[in-house]
């Protein structure tokens, strides 16, 4: 009624333009993020990968030549590498398993309504806000029998004969950074799993309860299948982040004593910033990238089959 004046107008000349703009719209929205990622992460990644094939030692003007696969041969023969790889596996698996188990327990506890839930949730999630190297310093302090309480706690629990510093024991030192990492990482699992738990429709539980399913049966047949996709992606991300995170180890043990806590990430860090051998460090990093990509693809494949089953 108000548009009679327009009703005679022909097809707008900019119709084609509108279609082009509509097609381009999602790319425009993505552009700033993608540009930044490409410039600051992908281009340096490619440059960094190219270092793996060069003899590049900082402050050594004679270095810089292309040496092909020499670094990779050295890695193959490097006992420190194999030791670090083994430690990486232990470190990553133990950290992820503990964070996951405890995070899931916490999420299940927080998923039921009770008095004080909001406050408790906020408190138990706090460790995530603590910078990891600060938490590393703090935990190292707490493990020290002169100034920290933990050795006495361990002794009281019967875990230790005498209150010693766990970080100076070649057999057990890795547990120091692991405890710090678990402390810091539980909230991430708890948050994502709690969110997944809360998106499970309540009536499914009611239906199962009416059908006579007990608590354990309900957990096994409803909760777990619903959580599985979230678990897969969360475990994937955390595994990669934990495998890559060197700071707690560098701060707490420097990889020692006797390389017993050296993981790949901290080994790379040491190669790059203490020996300034960027070429070798990049080669190690490239190996690690390939291993993590292989792992991620395997996990994604598992997740697809899990999803396909539902």
């Amino acid at each position, binding site marked *: 009624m108000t548009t009679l004046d327009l009703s005679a107008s022909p097809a707008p000349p900019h119709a084609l333009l509108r279609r082009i703009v509509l097609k381009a*719209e*999602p*790319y425009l*929205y*993505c552009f*700033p*993020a*993608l540009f*930044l*990622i490409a*410039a*600051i992460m992908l*281009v*340096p*990644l490619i*440059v960094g*990968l190219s270092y793996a094939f060069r003899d590049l030692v900082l402050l050594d003007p004679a270095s810089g030549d292309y040496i092909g696969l020499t670094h990779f041969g050295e890695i193959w023969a490097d006992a420190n590498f194999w030791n670090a790889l083994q430690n990486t596996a232990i470190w990553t698996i133990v950290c992820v398993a503990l964070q996951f188990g405890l995070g899931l*327990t*916490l999420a299940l506890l927080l998923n039921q309504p009770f008095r004080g839930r*909001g406050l*408790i*949730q*906020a408190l*138990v999630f*706090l*460790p995530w*806000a*603590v*910078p*990891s190297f600060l938490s590393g*310093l*703090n*935990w190292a*302090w707490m493990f*020290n029998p*002169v*100034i*920290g*309480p933990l050795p*006495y706690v361990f002794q009281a629990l019967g875990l230790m004969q005498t209150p010693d510093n766990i970080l100076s024991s070649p057999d057990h030192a890795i547990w120091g950074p692991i405890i710090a990492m678990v*402390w810091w990482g*539980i*909230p991430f699992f708890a*948050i*994502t799993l709690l*969110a*997944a738990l*809360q998106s499970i429709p309540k009536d499914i539980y009611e239906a199962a309860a009416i059908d006579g399913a007990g608590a354990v049966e309900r957990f096994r047949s409803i909760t777990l299948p619903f959580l599985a996709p979230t678990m897969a992606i*969360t475990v994937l991300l955390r595994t*990669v982040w934990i495998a*890559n995170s060197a*700071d707690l180890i560098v701060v707490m043990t420097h990889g020692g004593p006797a390389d017993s806590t050296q993981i*790949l*990430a901290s080994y*790379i860090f040491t190669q790059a910033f203490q020996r300034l051998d*960027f070429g070798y*460090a*990049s080669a190690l*990093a490239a190996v690690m*990238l390939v291993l993590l990509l292989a792992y991620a693809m395997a996990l994604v494949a598992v997740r697809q089959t899990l999803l396909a089953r539902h």
Partner: protein
Amino acid sequence: MRNPGYWIFHYGLLALFVVFALFPLFWLFKVSITPNDLLYSEGVRIWPSRMSFDHYGAVLRHSDFPLFFRNSVIVSTLTAFFSTIFAAAGGYAFSRFTFGGKLWIVGLLLVTQMFPLVMIVAPIFRLLAPLGLTNSLTGLVIVYTAFNVPFAVFLMQSFFDGIPKELEEAAMMDGASRFQALLQIIFPLTLPGIAATLGFVFTAAWSELLFALMLNSSTAASTFPVGLLAFVSKFSVDFGQMMAAGVLALIPVCVFFFFIQRYLVQGLTAGAVKG
């Protein structure tokens, strides 16, 4: 309803979690208020016989810490701001459009989470140095924004996925352009998600040490993690002051995180860590 026995177990277990989460923070605080002369003699006491805030005074008055703190606030705030804007735009596109190459972009974002960042320190330094972006807070903001955008995109996408598409369509039928619909209808509903993303990125930027250390060597452009490290590497390690600085540095992130964590849960409930 469950029996009382269950609730004893429930609260007991939660109490253990709370103690585990808070005890290290308590210890940090305890060391920071222990006078130097008692630091070792009363090292394992749960509370020192004398309290003193001298460490705080020293940190605030006689160190560069206020400068580091200021730098950290600037860098983290700007990083959180830009990351969230870019991630909101990208997450919106991921949530609302199907377009060619989407899968490749997702794959690309995942790859950025896969490699040790140590690997790209040197290339980034070489990239930024000629642009005058080393020893500069701007450089750090750019680098941190790039690091945090991939995860933030997934986070924002999950928030957008939780908002029905019909709301925008209704707004467009009501006479809004897509952009108006985004601003007036979708944006107000995403505020919890935006708060959560801001908090997440702020926390990450606040804690970052490696690039802060490698890109900015001058005191004037150092952030507080670097400053904190300076307490350690000096010959006379002043643990009391370091812990006091640590406590001060923790206050803003903890307060921030304390308030945003429930939005994180809310927002993720809607969707996409699953998808």
